[in-house]
């Protein structure tokens, strides 16, 4: 049982990173992007490819590459979509997520295809790993809050409020939005690295677009633009989705019920929010 609680803590931390990255992009900057799963996959596969070829690389070294590749892919999706707004961006980013997943499934020599890549590392002590995950979460949270207080952070908020007006007071909005995408994607890539390390593998099925929707759900639940809220939202969603297993009902309640639940949560939140404003 205690080992299950530790596992829950690890998942909570990894999902929290995804939610924080999403919140920077969507909550702070107002860009409705739906490809956190793809950014996470980039991180996981960067880790897996590096470690499967060079098993003795230090994690810090791998981490740097993960952050870099996450940021590059963030920019890659960022640049062509910088001109898109709202729903259009959402659709384009969903498409990007699908492209990434299909490349992972089919580029066998690099990604191992549907079987994914196994890491030649021994499994971690759960307690230790939990500490590691939450250390990363805390550092990211600190960084994001620092960013929020800086001129950059206020610039991002200004873009969310009114992009044209932000431009008219001299903000280079493409630069800001590109940076938001890069940082958000890098954070998700770190989540992917932790995921791959913990499971000792990277497989494409993990990084489905339903994961991106779930992450959005966490952020909306916690309040757009509120980082602590994202942690709360993540906790609620993780507990709900693991509850059947926690209570030993997993044989009776199929996993797909989760997705129905996320849908219900998302729809009711949106309706509730609209009433408030």
């Amino acid at each position, binding site marked *: 049982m205690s080992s299950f609680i530790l596992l829950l803590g690890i998942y909570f931390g990894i999902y929290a990173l995804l939610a924080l990255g999403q919140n920077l992009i969507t909550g702070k900057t107002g860009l409705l992007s739906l490809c956190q799963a793809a950014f996470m996959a980039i991180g996981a596969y960067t880790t897996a490819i590096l470690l499967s070829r060079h098993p003795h690389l230090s994690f810090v070294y791998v981490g740097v590459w993960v952050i870099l590749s996450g940021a590059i892919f963030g920019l890659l999706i960022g640049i062509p979509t910088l001109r898109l707004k709202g729903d259009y961006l959402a659709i384009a980013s969903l498409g990007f997520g699908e492209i990434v997943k299909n490349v992972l499934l089919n580029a066998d020599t690099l990604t191992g295809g549907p079987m994914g890549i196994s890491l030649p590392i021994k499994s971690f002590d759960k307690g230790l790993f939990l500490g590691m995950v939450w250390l990363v979460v805390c550092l990211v949270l600190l960084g994001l809050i620092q960013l929020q207080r800086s*001129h950059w952070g206020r610039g991002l908020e*200004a873009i969310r409020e009114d992009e*044209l*007006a932000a431009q*008219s*007071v*001299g903000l280079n909005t493409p630069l800001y939005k590109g940076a938001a995408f890069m940082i958000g994607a890098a954070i998700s890539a770190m989540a992917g690295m932790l995921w791959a390390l913990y499971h000792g593998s990277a497989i494409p099925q993990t990084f489905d677009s339903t994961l991106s929707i779930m992450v959005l759900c966490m952020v909306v639940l916690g309040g757009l633009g509120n980082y602590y809220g994202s942690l709360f939202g993540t906790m609620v969603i993780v507990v709900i989705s693991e509850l059947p297993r926690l209570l030993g009902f997993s044989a009776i309640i199929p996993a797909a019920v989760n997705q129905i639940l996320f849908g219900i949560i998302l729809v009711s939140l949106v309706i509730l929010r609209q009433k408030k404003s």
Partner: protein
Amino acid sequence: MTLLSTHRLHKDFGGIVAVNDLDLNIEKGFITGIIGPNGAGKTTSFNCMTGLDVPTSGQVIFNDIDITGLPTYRINRLGIARTFQNLRLFKEMTVFENVRVAKHRTSSAGNLQKDSGLWLEKLGLWTYRDERAKDLPYGLQKRLEIARAMATNPKLLFLDEPAAGLNQTETQEIMELIRSFRDSGLTVVVIEHDMHLIMNLCQHITVLNFGQKIAEGSPESVRNDPQVIEAYLGKEDHAAR
């Protein structure tokens, strides 16, 4: 001396011509008014001059620099600020933050806080600094938008209907504010339907209709120009019917 000029500025949207070969000269240190019936191309020409719309053809020259088609933020950094016909404030941010975001580029990091505060005080918004922009009364929102534009320290300020929706007292206050900017060396261009404001504030008026300049000159000469009267009231035989 000319601060900004357009040469054969042209903008069409699909088949609709919004600005038609417009030649404008904005004199430095003056308040210039742009008037014309609805749909005359006033806002579109503003947009072309501030980078929100890219002109189909023609040129915009500011301070001897060709700024045609530059992105809005670059144009702002060169010294042109603007307000919008329908308010575009950072609604969920505080009054203070609205100004601080704009002031960032023109103030050193150490002075940003202080400068933003001084600026709010000067414009009579200091009392409201912690209010969210959307919670301000309409008149003060208009004032805040001007404050935000001016915080970027422009040489040229475009005001798109600064008095729309304001009562007489507020309009008077805005006029005094604009005059005080002019007296401190700023060049101002105003679009406005309030003729009292235009006639009292502007030294020079340009009249547009169907995207073209139909008259320009001092308020008196424009007021009596038959073409202007026709644009606003229609031809005499139309009116007689």
